[in-house]
C-alpha cells in the first residue's frame, strides 16, 4: 500500500467513526428529545404525503447510519467504503429532515429540486475553477467574475430590454474579467492569489458603481429567465420535477457537466490542458503551447463563471443587489476541491452545498427555533469542514499556481 492510499484510508476510517458517533447520537436524541407521539409528514410532491412517527424514523435512520459507517470501517475496498459512507450521509440528512418536520411537513422532492437549483451557481463556479486549475492557474477571483457578470448582465437586460442579451453580456463580462486574471498571472507572472483578490475587489467596486450610477435610477425588478418544462420528460415521477422543470441556466449546467468531463478526459484538448497543469515543461517540449492553453482555459472558465453570475441576477432574483453572490464563488472552490478537480465530483460537492442552502431557507420558513443567523452560517461552516477534511485526500494539479517561464 502506498503512502497516499494509506493516508486516504485513515481519513475514510476517521470519517466512518465520525458517522458512527453521529448515528448513535441520533438514536439518543430521538429517545430523549422527540416526543413519541409526534408525527412528521414527508411529502413526495403529488404522489402523496407520508406521515411517519418522528421518533421511530429518526432512530431507524441513526441505526442504519451507524451500520453503514461500520461497514465502511471494515470494508477493505476504498471505493466501496466511500459509497457506504455516502449512504450514511444520506441517512443523516433524512433523519435531520424528519426531526425538523415534527408536526409539520417537508416535501422531499421539492427539497431535491431546490437543492439542484441552489447548487447551480456553485457547480458552474466549480467548473470554471476546474478549467483554470487543470491548466495550472489558481483562480480565487471566481466570486468577482460572478459578481461583475451579475451586475453587467442585469444592466444589459435593462439597456437592451432583452434578457437573453443580458445573459450573453454576463458571459462576456465573466470572460473579460478572466482575461485580466490571465494576463496578470500568465503574462506578468503576478502572484495568482493576489491577482484573484484584485479581481474580487474590482468587481465589488465596478458593480457597486454601476448599480448606484445607473441601475437604481431605472427601477426595474422581477424579469427572470423563463421556466421551461420539457414535454414528456417533465412528467416522469420525481426525476421530472427535479430535473426537467427548470430554468435555462440549470439546464445549461447539467449539459456542461458531462461535456466538460468528456472534453477534459477524452479529447486531445483535455489531455493538453491536463499536461500543462501537471508538467508544463514536458508539455512544452512535445510542442504544446503552454501560454495559449492557459489563456484559453482561464477565459472559457471565466465565461462559465459569468453564466453563474447571470444565475443570480437574471435567473433567480431579477434584479441586482450589492455583493449578491454572497461567497458562492469561494464555496465553488470548496466544491472543486471536494470533487478532486473532477467535474462530476465537484457537482456532487455543489449538490451538498446546495442542499445546505436549500435546507436553511426551508428551516427559516418552517420557523425552526434556531436563530436565522446560525442557519445562514451552515453553508460556510460546511465549506470549512470540507476544505479542512478533504484537502489531504485531494491532489491538485502539480503545476498549479506556478507561472511558466519559457
Amino acid at each position, binding site marked *: 500500500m502506498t503512502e497516499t492510499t494509506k493516508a486516504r484510508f485513515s481519513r475514510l476510517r476517521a470519517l466512518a467513526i465520525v458517522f458512527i458517533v453521529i448515528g448513535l447520537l441520533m438514536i439518543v436524541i430521538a429517545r430523549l428529545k422527540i416526543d413519541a407521539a409526534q408525527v412528521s409528514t414527508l411529502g413526495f410532491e403529488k404522489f402523496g404525503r407520508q406521515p411517519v412517527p418522528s421518533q421511530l424514523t429518526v432512530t431507524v435512520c441513526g441505526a442504519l447510519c451507524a451500520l453503514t459507517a461500520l461497514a465502511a470501517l471494515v470494508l477493505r475496498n476504498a471505493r466501496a467504503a466511500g459509497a457506504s459512507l455516502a449512504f450514511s450521509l444520506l441517512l443523516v440528512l433524512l433523519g435531520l429532515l424528519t426531526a425538523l418536520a415534527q408536526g409539520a411537513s417537508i416535501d422531499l422532492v421539492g427539497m431535491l429540486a431546490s437543492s439542484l437549483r441552489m447548487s447551480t451557481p456553485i457547480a458552474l463556479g466549480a467548473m470554471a475553477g476546474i478549467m483554470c486549475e487543470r491548466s495550472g492557474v489558481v483562480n480565487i477571483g471566481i466570486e468577482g467574475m460572478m459578481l461583475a457578470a451579475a451586475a453587467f448582465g442585469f444592466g444589459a437586460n435593462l439597456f437592451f430590454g432583452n434578457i437573453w442579451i443580458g445573459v450573453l453580456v454576463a458571459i462576456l463580462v465573466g470572460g473579460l474579467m478572466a482575461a485580466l486574471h490571465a494576463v496578470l498571472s500568465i503574462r506578468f507572472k503576478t502572484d495568482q492569489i493576489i491577482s484573484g*483578490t484584485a479581481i474580487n475587489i474590482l468587481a465589488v467596486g465596478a458593480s457597486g458603481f454601476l448599480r448606484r450610477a445607473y441601475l437604481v435610477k431605472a427601477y426595474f425588478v422581477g424579469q427572470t429567465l423563463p421556466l421551461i418544462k420539457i414535454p414528456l420528460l417533465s412528467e416522469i415521477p420525481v426525476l421530472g420535477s427535479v430535473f426537467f422543470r427548470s430554468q435555462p441556466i440549470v439546464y445549461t449546467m447539467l449539459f456542461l457537466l458531462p461535456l466538460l468531463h468528456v472534453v477534459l478526459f477524452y479529447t486531445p484538448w483535455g489531455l493538453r490542458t491536463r499536461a500543462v497543469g501537471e508538467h508544463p515543461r514536458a508539455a512544452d517540449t512535445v510542442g504544446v503551447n503552454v501560454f495559449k492553453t492557459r489563456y484559453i482555459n482561464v477565459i472559457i472558465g471565466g465565461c462559465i463563471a459569468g453564466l453563474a453570475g447571470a444565475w443570480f441576477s437574471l435567473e433567480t432574483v431579477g434584479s441586482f443587489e450589492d455583493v449578491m453572490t454572497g461567497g458562492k464563488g469561494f464555496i465553488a472552490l470548496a466544491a472543486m476541491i471536494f470533487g478532486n478537480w473532477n467535474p462530476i465530483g465537484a457537482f456532487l460537492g455543489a449538490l451538498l452545498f446546495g442542499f445546505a442552502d436549500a435546507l436553511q431557507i426551508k428551516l427559516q420558513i418552517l420557523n425552526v427555533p434556531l436563530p436565522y443567523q446560525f442557519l445562514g*452560517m451552515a453553508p460556510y461552516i460546511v*465549506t470549512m469542514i470540507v476544505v479542512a477534511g478533504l484537502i489531504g485526500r485531494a491532489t491538485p494539479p502539480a503545476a498549479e499556481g506556478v507561472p511558466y517561464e519559457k
Partner: protein
Amino acid sequence: MTAESREMTVQAPAAWIRLVTDLAVPVLAVFTALAIGAVVIWAAKANVVVAYRGLLEGAFGSVRNLTETLVITTPYTLAGLAVALGFRCGLFNIGVEGQFYMGALCSVYVAYAAKGLPVYVHLPLALLTGALGGAMWGAIPGFLKAKLGAHEVINTIMLNYIAVKTVDYLVKNPMLDAAATMPRTPYIQPSAMLPKLLPPYRLHAGLLIAIVAIFVVYWLLWKTTLGFEIRTVGANPDAAKYAGMSVTRNFVLAMVLSGALAGLAGTGEVLGLNHNLPAMFISGYGFDSIAIALMAKSHPFGILPAAFLWAALRNGAGLMQLRAGISIDLVNIVQALVIVFIAADEIIRWLYRIKRRKEEIRELVFTRGWGR
C-alpha cells in the same frame, strides 16, 4: 546563526536613491489608478476636476476633515499591519474583516458589562479582550492550515461571513440594548472609552495605539528570534523546516498575532468612536487593508503613509460624491487598480520605464496550491 547570515541583503546603492526607487512604483501605481479613475468619471459624464477637487477638500480641506481622515487612518493602520504581518509569514489573511468584528464584539462586551472599574484597569482590559477576540478568530484558520493544510484564503473568507452573522445574532439578542431604536449594544462605560485627542473633534487615542503598534511589529519582526523565524518561514518554509524551525507553530503564531492586530482595529472603533456596537456594523476594512499592506510592501513603516492615503481617499469620497455626483464606489475601483498595479508592478515599470533592482527579484509567494 551568525551575524552575516542575517544580513542577507546585497550591497545597496545610496540610501536616498533606494528610497526614491522604492517609492516610485507605489506612487506611480496610485497615480495611474487615479488617472484611470478619471476616465471612469469622464465616462460617467461628470466633471473630473470638480470630482477630484472634492476628493482632496473632503480629505484635507479643514481641521475637521483632516482629523476625520486621521480617524479612519487609525483602523487602517492596525488592519494593514495585520495583513502585512501575515504576508511576512507567507500567509494571506483575508480574514481581517472577521477578526475586526470579533475584536469589536469582545471588547464592547467587557466595556459595557463590567461596571465600577477604574480607568486604568477597565480600558486596558477592554483593549486586551478585543485583541484576544481577533487573535482567537485568526487562530482558527492558522490552526487549520498548520494541522490539516487547508488554505487560509478560503477559511478566512468563510470566517468573515460567520463573524458577521455571529455579531448580528448577538447584538440583536443577548447583547441588545432594549432602549435603543436601532439594534445595538448598550453604550460602554466611560471608564473604557479611549480619550479624545482634540476634544471637539472625534480623533481619539486609538491613533497613538496604532503608531505604537507599528514600532512593536517592527521590533518583533526584525529584532527578535520569533520575528526572524516568522520571516524565514515566509521566505522559504522548506529552508525554515530544514533549519529546525516549526513551520506549523509559526503559521499559527503569525495568524494569532495578525488576528490580534485586526481585533485591536475593531476595538479602537468601539472604544474610541462608536461607544457601542450596532448590528449594521459594516467596516469594509478587510479588503482595504490588503491594498495598504501591498502598498507598504509589508513593511511596518510603510503602513502609516499607505493607511493615511487610503483614509484620505475614503474620507474625501463623500464630498466627491456630493460635488460631482460620482458614487463613492469609484474609490473601490481605484483601490483594485492600485492592487493590480502594485502586484503586477511590471506594468508600471513598463509604462514609466523603471528598472528593477537586482535584489528585488525575489518576492513573496502565496500561491502554493491549496494546501500541504
